[in-house]
């Protein structure tokens, strides 16, 4: 009997367990497998293999039964999921249905989830900007409760490491507020975007730069990308379906198949992690309790090192649910700060306008990207009556109008014409929010889900600072669009937007300088259980204004390589 048990334990023992196969979990898997470590990746959702499991990828627009619209029955079953822009007829199979995975909103936080191999790396908007030193220094400068234990210089080499492999297109803009990276050829700005860029440069004396967006698209694939089996981005703008060319970065197209080829990866879909097993004798985590999502059978897996990459909120949930006599409030949660300081990006407003100049020109083709206005408020010092600042997306396009005036032949002739109106100008707001103890997630005391995991309770909301910041964006953008000579300028405040719809939720298990008020050290290890690492959005001390995924990738690669070194030294 003992012999049999030992054999079973051995079969279920790996060097490393990575929980989650999304954008950060894929990176953990790649780094560990490259170093020859036997790595188990646990994914709670179904398997999605690159290309073969992208059912809509090659469908033409006219092949969709409802031409893109989601049927009412499905919307009614998923009132939260159907609020996100990404929940469309071609991509809805990659988004969790509300009724299958309930949670409790103490405040209306709209939690958007992608339970499948690759997670939300199939669905992300692919914006990839580095943080600057000002971003890392922000929490200390502004007196936040928790400060970053690392700075730009700690992460810069790891940004390079992940950028080269993932393939990031961008222009070397030389901005100290948004450091340059290892870029592939940039996308082109439209003539009106260039006009806007120039006008801003003149009017604000270089203090409000506008650049082409930096994004994870192979505009100019290198040998390292071909080696992954990926090819050039074909400008389809159908990324949310999964890309058959691997034209944008996803775990499915890049890190997971790469890790698989080393022979060191075991990928186990349909594996819901219930909790981390803590060994009181060794003072370390020894493995994880898993529930098979299909059979509901419980299993245990063991490893020397455990990486949490389950996505921000699920990482919080797993750790809070990992209770032992040493850790009655969840593993590593001695200070009871776990689950607190959930923060996000505010996307509550945007702008639209028209431009009636440059009417002899238009755009042609499609671009999976736009222009970008890096943060210009409070970058180096406090200038406004709100804390922190915002970045903004910006685009100006001109494609044929749909003229649907008239009826009968008049209508038909109008529709069949190729007419161009004014340039369409748009912008969206991405505001930094201040991490607060009062924005939290926690476990429900009594209710559990189908896999025996306590239901999550969420209490996260916007505050006055966020509202002041949104107002400032609208005022500043109105001024900027006016300076550029645009017309019909409108601020489009969203009335039904809730936190969560940014899909940039972060925090809860934050990195910090002090074990009194943070959960993780500068290497993403739990202060009180060093062989447990958290490198997804949950580890983020603050959110700044950049799209977060690139920073999760860099933090993950850095922490994984540190873990490899520590394993070699026998420290884990």
């Amino acid at each position, binding site marked *: 009997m003992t012999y049999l048990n030992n054999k079973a334990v051995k079969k279920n023992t790996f060097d490393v367990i990575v929980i989650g196969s999304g954008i950060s979990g894929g990176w953990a898997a790649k780094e560990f497998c490259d170093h020859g470590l036997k790595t188990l990746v646990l994914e709670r959702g179904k398997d999605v293999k690159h290309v073969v499991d992208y059912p809509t990828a090659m469908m033409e627009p006219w092949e969709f039964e409802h031409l893109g619209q989601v*049927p009412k029955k499905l919307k009614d079953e998923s009132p939260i999921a159907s609020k996100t822009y990404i929940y469309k007829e071609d991509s809805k199979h990659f988004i969790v249905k509300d009724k299958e995975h309930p949670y409790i909103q103490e405040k209306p936080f709209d939690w958007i989830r992608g339970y499948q191999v690759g997670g939300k790396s199939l669905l992300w908007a692919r914006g990839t900007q580095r943080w600057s030193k000002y971003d890392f220094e922000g929490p200390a400068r502004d007196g936040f409760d928790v400060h970053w234990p690392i700075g730009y210089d700690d992460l810069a080499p790891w940004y390079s490491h992940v950028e080269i492999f993932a393939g990031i297109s961008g222009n070397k803009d030389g901005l100290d507020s948004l450091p340059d990276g290892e870029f592939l050829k940039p996308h082109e700005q439209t003539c009106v975007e260039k006009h806007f860029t120039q006008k801003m440069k003149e009017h604000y004396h270089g203090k409000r730069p506008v650049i082409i967006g930096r994004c994870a698209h192979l505009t100019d694939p290198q040998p390292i990308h071909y080696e992954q089996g990926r090819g050039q981005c074909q400008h389809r703008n159908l990324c949310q379906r999964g890309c058959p060319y691997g034209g944008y970065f996803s775990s499915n197209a890049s890190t997971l198949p790469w890790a698989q080829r080393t022979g060191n990866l075991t990928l186990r879909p349909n594996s819901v992690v219930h909790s981390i097993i803590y060994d009181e004798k060794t003072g370390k985590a020894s493995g994880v309790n898993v529930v098979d999502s299909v059979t509901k059978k419980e299993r245990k897996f063991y490893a020397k090192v455990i990486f949490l990459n389950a996505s921000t909120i699920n990482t919080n949930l797993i750790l809070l649910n990992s209770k032992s006599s040493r850790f009655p409030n969840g593993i590593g949660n001695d200070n009871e700060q776990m689950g607190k300081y959930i923060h996000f990006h505010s996307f509550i407003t945007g702008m639209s306008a028209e431009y009636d100049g440059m009417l002899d020109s238009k755009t042609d083709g499609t671009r999976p990207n736009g222009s970008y206005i890096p943060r210009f408020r409070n970058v180096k010092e406090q200038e406004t009556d709100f804390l922190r600042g915002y970045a903004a997306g910006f685009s100006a396009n001109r494609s044929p109008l749909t003229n649907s005036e008239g009826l009968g032949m008049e209508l038909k002739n109008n529709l069949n014409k190729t007419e161009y109106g004014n340039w369409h100008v748009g912008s969206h707001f991405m505001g930094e929010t201040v991490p607060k103890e009062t924005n939290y997630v926690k476990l429900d005391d009594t209710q559990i889900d189908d896999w025996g995991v306590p239901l999550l309770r969420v209490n996260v909301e916007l505050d006055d600072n966020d509202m002041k910041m949104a107002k400032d964006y609208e005022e500043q953008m109105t001024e900027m669009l006016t300076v550029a000579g645009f017309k019909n300028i409108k601020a489009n405040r969203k009335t039904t937007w809730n936190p969560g719809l940014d899909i940039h939720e972060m925090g809860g298990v934050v990195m910090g300088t002090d074990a009194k008020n943070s959960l993780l050290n500068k290497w993403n290890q739990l202060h009180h259980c060093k062989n447990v690492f958290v490198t997804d959005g949950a580890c983020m001390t603050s959110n700044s204004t950049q799209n977060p995924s690139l920073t999760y990738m860099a933090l993950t690669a850095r922490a994984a390589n540190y873990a490899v070194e520590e394993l070699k030294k026998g420290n884990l």
Partner: protein
Amino acid sequence: MERRKAIQTLGLGFSTLLALPSWVNSWSKASFAESNFENEVTLAALVECIIPESETPGAKAVGAHLYLERMVNGCYGTDVKKMFLAGLEKLEKRSSQKYNKAFSELDLEKRTAVLASMKNASEVSDKRFFSFVKNLTVRAYTHSEYYLTTYRNYVMAPGYFHGCVPV
């Protein structure tokens, strides 16, 4: 030739979906063949007067009438369905009052006149019906393979973006 192709391709491309993984259940349930297009004749007559066939295909040829019914059945609530069915009844009523014929039996000119009378009617529900069917017909037509490839140079993978070219 092109018309036949258009009929085959709008919404009828479902044979390509047979090889889907089983978890994509939303498609397997909604087999096109099972749908019951009760109003097919009336709807075909309706969309044809919104965008008629001439030397080029109209809304009927690209399957807009099938799309219209599918949308009403699948994508809207009972209030919209009621409004839609009431509007169809109203079309019939106006046709028989004015011409003593069913809507679908009228020639294109008379049918168009009956439809236009809905647009100009005093009742809000009639106006709403008119915009509803017109919008969906325009959407079906402008998303059809025929339209996108003939008038919009549509290709799935252009492979480029130029930010500034002469009109």
